[in-house]
């Protein structure tokens, strides 16, 4: 039996270690890219880049078995595609097509479900959890639980890194 079937495909490493490795690598890359920015705009850009790197490495560490990690990776990829030049329109079309079909099917299912729990709360949760728009309440709660677990690890690791960096 696999006790941590949720966390890792590779049984030897844990979510935390995978996330840390990927995140540190991306941090090093970010630090190498530009000199220390002074104007607030560059600072903001850099913050955003760091945050994106953190999210991306978390989603990668969580594995593609989870809806939220897939959705987050798609979102990041779409954002970078949108911002950058349109080199690969075919890829974008494929990604968007996947999202819309999934959304279309699942939205129909959502409307047929009776609304037992507060719908505004459910919609709030859907907005918070990436990829939560196209899920029924049951799997939404499941994804939310896993997402919270991963966020916790992410925060722990980032805090440790920040402490080490500052000391």
């Amino acid at each position, binding site marked *: *039996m696999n006790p941590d079937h949720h966390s890792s495909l590779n049984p030897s490493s844990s979510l935390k270690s995978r996330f840390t490795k990927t995140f540190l690598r991306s*941090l090093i890359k970010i630090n190498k890219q530009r000199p220390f920015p002074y104007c607030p705009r560059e600072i903001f850009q850099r*913050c955003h880049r760091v*945050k994106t790197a*953190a*999210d991306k490495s978390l989603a990668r560490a969580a594995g593609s078995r989870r809806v939220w990690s897939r959705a987050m990776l798609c979102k990041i990829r779409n954002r970078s595609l949108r911002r950058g030049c349109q080199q690969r329109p075919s890829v974008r079309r494929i990604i968007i097509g996947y999202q819309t079909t999934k959304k279309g099917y699942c939205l129909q299912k959502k409307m047929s479900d009776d609304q037992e729990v507060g719908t505004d*709360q459910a919609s709030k949760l859907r907005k918070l959890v990436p990829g939560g728009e196209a899920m029924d309440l049951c799997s939404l709660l499941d994804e939310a639980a896993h997402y*919270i677990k991963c966020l916790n690890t992410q*925060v722990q690791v*980032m805090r440790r890194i920040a402490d080490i960096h500052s000391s």
Partner: protein
Amino acid sequence: MHPCSREMQGINYVLNPSSQIPLQDLQNQQHQQIQNSPFDPSSSSNDDFLDQMLSSLPSSSWADLKSPWDLNPPTSLNIPINNSSAKPREDETPPSMPENVGFHNFDESVILAAKLRQHQISGGPSPAVAAAAKAMLQQQLMMATRGGGLPQNDVVDGSSFKSPTRGDGSVQALYNNGFGAGSMHGTGQASNQSQQHFHHPQEGSLQAQNFSTPGAGAGMAMNQPQASGSTGGAPAQPRQRVRARRGQATDPHSIAERLRRERIAERMKALQELVPNGNKTDKASMLDEIIDYVKFLQLQVKVLSMSRLGGAAAVAPLVADMSSEGRGGAGGGGDCIQATANGGSLPRTNSNSTQTPSSNDTLTVTEHQVARLMEEDMGSAMQYLQGKGLCLMPISLATAISTTTSHSRNPVLNSNHHSLLHSNGEGPSSPSMSVLTVQSATMGNGRGDASVKDAASVSKP
């Protein structure tokens, strides 16, 4: 009595696989019992059977057990000895002698336990275990229905399933049901019990399958009919049929509804453990907690990514919620953000004094602007502040930061609510965190709003 205690021992043996009851001891005890038992006429032959069985154990493979189960198990399974020994004994002893039958079943249970133990030692694959255990179970069931030794067998089935599967709760239910069924064994309802036995191992096998594929919520559905009392004369069909509780509809819609609700309930329970302050009984308030916690965690990630830059000048605005829960969450978040700010900021070589009165005019303008924006939409207010290099935070946090970071400075916040302190720390030589403190603009303007909803403080350490 004697076989029952033996049985309990066997069950304990299965339940605690890590216990140090070696196989040899059990076998020895069994030998003794065999010799002492007055019921067993062929004790010597039993020894031979046992020896053969034990010798065949190390060489037994699960593949043999997994071979398709048919009604003649002696030919296909690896323990023909046991079966052949069982048959004559069953013919000899009438079903009205439960002890002997119990003892016979104990034999099988010991063998099963031994096999499982051996398998655990050898570390076989888990689905194989489940499938093999299922095969063993069904075989035992057939023996039971043929011999009529019902209650103990049922108990053994329940207990034997404990080792390969991980789900203790539902297996425990199966186990308890076994005892419950066993309590009615003397009433001569052989057929009814056999039907129940068909039902139990079937559910047990379902459980085994479901535990090998974790997360299958449908598996829990099968526990329902097991838990529900049979409404008398339920059909014994090996197919998966959901039995209805007393007085509840059996139409598929309500059943599906019930399943869905139960699934949601168990997910909420799992979430309850993750979220702090998760002791709310109400589903709606629990959802609120969950939402706040997710927001809080995302905010933390944002702030941490900012602070990693060595204390940037522009810190992400903290969300100061209107509700008290938001206040609590933000307060909790505020503490750790304060910690990261303290940790993230570089050593403060320069002790800057806050520039209070000089830039008051610009600050009041900012204040008004922020107040206006806050009334419309918090997001835009935050962005506005961020553009200026300021952020919003609760008063408690601001006091905490100012008292801890300022060494010999006067307290940033006066009791007078109209004070506004602002310093833009954007000098390259002092990359420190600057926080904007804006008292509630409504109060600042004297509109008489008693409740201080938000407060943000600016302080430069």
